[in-house]
């Protein structure tokens, strides 16, 4: 699990990577830089994922396979795992100027292989 998260955190600008239980909003595994509160990231990412899922269901765009919250001082990137994987989220917290495409690929890879 930790090796899988390594794939994400080695991308320049990534400050932390986690596996989060989507239903409970609890940390399953984490690899975080100093100062990042894993519990808060897990709870808030899961809550936002739930609200986004309802909006996307209503819009008819289907379940999200990747989402990205952009903010002034950083970003939150999330790939929801499959239902079969017990509804886990693969989450990355990044600097604002990170290579989003690269982080997205690593998140998808972790979701496919480790989750």
């Amino acid at each position, binding site marked *: 699990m930790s090796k899988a998260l390594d794939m994400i955190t080695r991308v320049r600008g990534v400050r932390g990577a986690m596996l*989060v*239980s989507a*239903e*409970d*909003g*609890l940390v399953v595994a984490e690899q975080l830089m100093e100062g990042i509160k894993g*519990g*808060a990231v*897990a*709870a*808030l990412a*899961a*809550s936002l994922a*739930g609200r986004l899922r309802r909006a996307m269901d209503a819009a008819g765009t289907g379940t999200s396979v990747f989402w990205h919250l952009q903010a002034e001082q950083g970003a939150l990137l999330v790939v929801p795992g499959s239902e079969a994987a017990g509804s886990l989220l693969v989450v990355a917290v990044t600097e604002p100027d990170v290579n989003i495409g690269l982080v997205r690929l690593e998140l998808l890879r972790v979701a496919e292989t480790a989750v």
Partner: protein
Amino acid sequence: MSPHTRAVENWTLQPLTDFVREASARLVLVLTPSGQVLAQSGFSRAVDVMSAAALASAIVASTNELARQLRQAPFAALSHQGPKTGFFLATFVTDRGTLAVLAVYDLDVSSLGLVQLFYEQLAADLKAASPKGAVPKQVLAADFERELTDSLNTLFGR
């Protein structure tokens, strides 16, 4: 009609109001381990508060005893989750003595993670707001019923 959030001891009101809003908790009690309620949110009937407080107090007592028998520190928190609703019970120490928080939340608007996250803030806020140097009041058996009635009247705005 259910009052929103009410407190017997006013210093608990703001931290509890913030917690209820942030964690989207449906029902919350702040109580002492002996079952004396300091504040409540979301309850519509006094009898429900009494039952919940008695049950929460009993759970705190039994888990403390389990921890004692296992020769370890008391459990920090306890959580149960059903298909639609979860509850969370935890204790912490303030200048007012040990306090317990019982929170009930609906899984479609909240989660254990959110409740835990904002519980940490609630415990910190209550610790900061609790009256300094206060000696926890002993409730005598003779005064118990009057104390209980007074508390319930305050909690339901009567």
